[in-house]
């Protein structure tokens, strides 16, 4: 069986299959499809969907709902991420699991609301103050839109933090034919709900305390301020230090649980193409085309954008002397790759006119 489906619908289905019970969002092109589908579908499975008065309220509602026991998701585009910023910080600080979809469009500002872009890859990484790690997954196909969304719910529970699904106008809104059998099943872990004991844990630094939901057992507090493990505001230096290290290490020390990439490596190939998101499709096609022309080349489509999957990228770079990074921005991810490339030549294939990168452009760069 096949179906004709767009990425937004796949994201919605991934969320529902992952057990999403709460959605709040504000209309914005090109993310409105997710809002509308959620408003229509979530009530059918007993979930709650709300159109907020703005983006700030929408993500705020998700945080409140999560504390009340929901599994929550919100979706927006670049201008909406700007407004999410402070609540992203609150979710990081309060350790609130949450899935945030960014359907990228060409920015800055209103930019091109109906135009594809990958301009937010650093924005989601550094989208709130404080400089703490963020988890972001980037689907490159409709099928990946489905299962990476489910995976995002899983990781949000695992690490008690907001997790981004970074897609774009093209992937989200273009209808594609997909084999129903091609959707993998993702095991999404149940929430570990705390009852009694402190709602936070900082030692060992990488450990995560279960989420203490409101209205179930002992009373607890959450706060956006620096706090002790009881959730009380504090300026006690060792406690603040432990809190901040914990927020970082709970993710940094477990990068292996997050790393995801689709590797198509050819032994002895001198060139590696690294892409992500919608550009990943062009990378796959370009690798196939180059090989057809007798060029030896490897391809890597990064699925976990953040933290950057260093281990996978390093492995893919073995024996390679040239790395090509196509993206719909002026090299935002290429700089990350350069850091790992350790002296190898790294070239970008970049486009910011609102059109997709042609397969030929990549093939040319590989040749």
């Amino acid at each position, binding site marked *: *069986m096949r179906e004709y489906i767009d990425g937004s619908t796949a994201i919605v289905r991934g969320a*529902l299959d992952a057990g999403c019970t709460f959605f*709040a969002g504000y209309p914005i092109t090109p993310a409105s499809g997710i809002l509308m589908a959620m408003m229509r579908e979530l009530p059918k499975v007993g979930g709650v969907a709300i159109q907020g008065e703005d983006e*700030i309220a929408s993500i705020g509602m998700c945080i*409140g709902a999560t504390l*009340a026991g929901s599994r929550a998701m919100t979706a927006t585009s670049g201008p909406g991420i700007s407004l999410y910023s402070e609540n992203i910080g609150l979710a990081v600080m309060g350790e609130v699991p949450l899935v945030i979809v960014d359907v990228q469009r060409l920015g800055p500002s209103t930019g091109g609301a109906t135009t594809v872009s990958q301009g937010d890859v650093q924005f989601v990484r550094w989208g709130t103050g404080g400089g703490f790690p963020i988890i972001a997954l980037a689907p490159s196909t409709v099928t990946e839109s489905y299962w990476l969304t489910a995976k995002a719910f899983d990781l949000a529970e695992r690490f008690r933090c907001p997790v981004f699904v970074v897609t774009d106008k093209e992937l989200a809104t273009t209808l594609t034919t997909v084999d129903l059998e091609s959707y993998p099943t993702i095991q999404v872990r149940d929430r570990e709900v705390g009852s009694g004991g402190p709602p936070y844990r900082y030692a060992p630094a990488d450990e995560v305390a279960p989420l203490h939901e409101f209205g179930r057992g002992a009373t607890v507090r959450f706060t956006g301020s620096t706090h002790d493990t009881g959730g009380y505001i504090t300026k006690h230096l060792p406690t603040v230090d432990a809190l901040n290290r914990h927020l970082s290490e709970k993710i940094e020390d477990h990068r292996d649980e997050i790393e995801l990439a689709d590797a198509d490596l050819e032994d002895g190939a001198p060139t590696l193409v690294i892409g992500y998101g919608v550009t990943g499709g062009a990378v796959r096609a370009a690798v196939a085309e180059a090989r057809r022309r007798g060029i030896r080349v490897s391809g890597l489509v990064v699925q976990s954008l953040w933290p950057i999957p260093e281990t996978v990228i390093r492995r893919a770079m073995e024996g390679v002397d040239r790395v090509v990074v196509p993206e719909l921005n002026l090299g935002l991810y290429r700089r990350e790759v350069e850091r790992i490339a350790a002296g190898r030549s790294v070239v970008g294939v970049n486009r910011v006119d609102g059109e997709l990168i042609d397969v030929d452009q990549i093939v040319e760069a590989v040749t």
Partner: protein
Amino acid sequence: MTDTTQYTRQDWQSDQEVRWCPGCGDYTILASLQNFMADFGVDRENVVFVSGIGCASRFPYYMNTYGMHGIHGRAPAIASGLAVARPDLSVWVVTGDGDALSIGGNHIIHSMRRNINIKVLLFNNQIYGLTKGQYSPTSERGKKTKSSPWGVIDYPFNPVSLAIGAEATFVARTIDMDRPHTQEILTAAYQHQGSAFVEIYQNCNVFNDKAFIALTGKEERDVNRIVLEQDKPVVFGPDDAMGVVIEHGEARIVEVADVGIDAIHVHDATVENAGAAFALSRLSHGPTGPTPIGIFRSVDRSTYASDLQQQIHDAQAARGPGDLALLIAGAGTWEVSD
């Protein structure tokens, strides 16, 4: 929500040291709230306090309930998510004039309009306390503060008028110093189904002392307090010699003897038309003269959560629950024979 558990005020106190300036009105409100909760037998484990940023926002640390000390202005949004996801919880928002009416203005009006079951306590001290003395959206015109050295030229909000305009189904005003009245209002807000908006005049003795002296001073208060009581003529002052008439949508203060008691407006907060409540709210633009306190408006409307539950029920009945496979595919699926 009520159960047989017997609480005392101590049960509602957390083990945290309360850190407001000595003499701050917040202490009295905290005590009123803890007393009300204990007296009324509210079940502590069904109560959530959500706050934003400001002096008042430390409240959740001091109440022995669930609490969220969130970010500036966004408490109504967080509380809305909570209240809709768990309609069985009693969700309270503690906020201030800056938090609710400046940065959080949008969230306040929309949470009221939706009739989400949250109780908003707006501690109005007409100043920014936590950031040390800047003017707020309720500061009176001409006021000189650290951020308005030449005097405020903004026109202030009248919070009660704003809440009525925002479709709040329960709107009241009380005064920190008047604990019995505060407890009475809190009880009514708690019992109200839907959004409740309570403005509490709160003295910031450090940055805006005596802002409400017209209503709290020994001599002044008897002259200026207009206590709204359901089904009673709105009279006030020594010997109830003064009264309020409403004509052509406008409330006016008169001497009762001049118009006769039958001409005096009889207060009814339960009428759906908000005209009289709004007119009463316009009697004073700042608490410097005769000012109404009490319940301006208390009307029955279905709550957001109850309407939503109905929609969920209907959607599931129409489609059958848990129909995940068919959920979205359906129309867009077909068989292809190779």
